[in-house]
């Protein structure tokens, strides 16, 4: 019996105006992409607090993605710029304490980039599979 292949669980914080719309476009256009993602729509990538990211890892997420509008497209003008700084700091500190950097990604996906969204998710799942389940930050019971 083929060993059951590890399927990573990804929590994706998608900004409502762009990335979430992009993922809807991928769905409406019947594009194929792995079903590993648990999408959480947020009003803006700038509203994603490091606590949400940590809480996702604590609850057992194998990978976390934060996706927002391209710089300049933000519905709230500056939300994604704030997010860029904050996520960079979170990424550095996660790496500093020893979490595999592949587990935490950020991306710009506009409402028209349904294809790019599926690309990002495919690559993300591929890069997570060899790492196996995330056990470092996970709550044990």
């Amino acid at each position, binding site marked *: 019996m083929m060993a059951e292949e590890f399927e990573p669980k990804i929590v994706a914080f998608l900004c409502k105006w762009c990335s979430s719309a992009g993922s809807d476009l991928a769905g409406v256009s019947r594009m194929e992409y792995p079903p590993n993602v648990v999408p959480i729509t947020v009003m803006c990538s700038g509203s994603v607090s490091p606590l949400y990211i940590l809480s996702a890892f604590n*609850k*057992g997420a194998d990978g976390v993605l934060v996706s927002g509008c391209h710089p300049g497209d933000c519905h709230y003008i500056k939300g994604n710029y704030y997010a860029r700084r904050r996520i960079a700091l979170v990424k550095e500190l996660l790496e500093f304490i020893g979490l595999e950097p592949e587990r935490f990604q950020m991306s710009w996906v506009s409402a028209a980039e349904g294809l790019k969204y599926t690309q990002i998710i495919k690559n993300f799942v591929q890069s997570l599979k060899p790492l196996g389940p995330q056990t470092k930050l996970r*709550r044990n*019971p």
Partner: protein
Amino acid sequence: MEKILNKKNLPRWIKGLKAFQVYAPSRDGDIWNYALIENPEDITLDYTSTVLSPKTIVFPQREILLKFGTSNDGELEITETLPQQDPSVIFGVRPCDAKAVFLMDKVFGGDFVDPYYWNRRDQIILVGLTCNTPPSPNCFCLSVDGSPHSKDGLDILMTDLGDRYFMESLTEKGDELFNLGKKLFEKPTAKDIKELAKIQADSEKNLKRQIKNIKKIPSLLKDMFESSYWDEASMSCLRCGICTYLCPTCHCFDMNDEVAVTSPIKGQRVRTWDTCQFPDFTMHSSGHNPRPDKASRLRQRVFHKFYYFPERYKNFQCIGCGRCISKCPVGIDIIQVLDGVSDHGA
């Protein structure tokens, strides 16, 4: 029963205690703490005082009281999770820390016996080591009815006579440990006994600190509840939990439900240490807090140990180990607070 054990036979005696889990002070960087000893050779008994007392073994910071979930027929089901403590021996227990366990036995005994505590406590044997020299600059055990060679709570008291230990067994559990190493022990000679008495008497002389008039403290405290003294004494307090979490006699705890990640009705009820120094300790869900500020909380810490506990159990709930003094980040010193109470009352 009194015996002599040559120091080089200590590891062999401990090897004979295969049926027990052996804990002893072990060094981690600059600090000592009790840890499980795999290899009896590693045991060392020349250490200063540990940051955390044997309380971490007798009354661990976290334990699961019960698990809840749905049984296979979908009904809510709870299972009691009493601790399964293997028989254990803790070596190198300072007499004051053993007195702390002796006091905690009173709290968790009494009319409501705490099965979680006693399931563990009944399996644990405490082997003490006399403090020939005070392990901390802030020791004051003599001020609170303790001493560097007190026996309360101990099963065996070891005293270092230089190349050998004078071993006094105080309970059947102590005798049982002796029998497990019969041939290693010798009978104490009159010289040994004289030397023991001298060392134990001398050990009381080099304590540097004491509380001025401890006997009057409970009655002085009784009338100082409303005093502004507590505001001045707690002015620099940072409201952290060091003094209570490190205190060997502090037994306050919290009980919370932890829910499994997979389902909200599966999880466990967990008991953890708690401290009267944090606001949520006494805050009502209406927001009213009977002890709203750090002054009332310092007062509670002092009242509980030096007025309420003695009134209820005839012992001070302080063993004079000095941990709260040594580790307070802003140097709040329980001895000075109490001396201040004496001066204030005078």
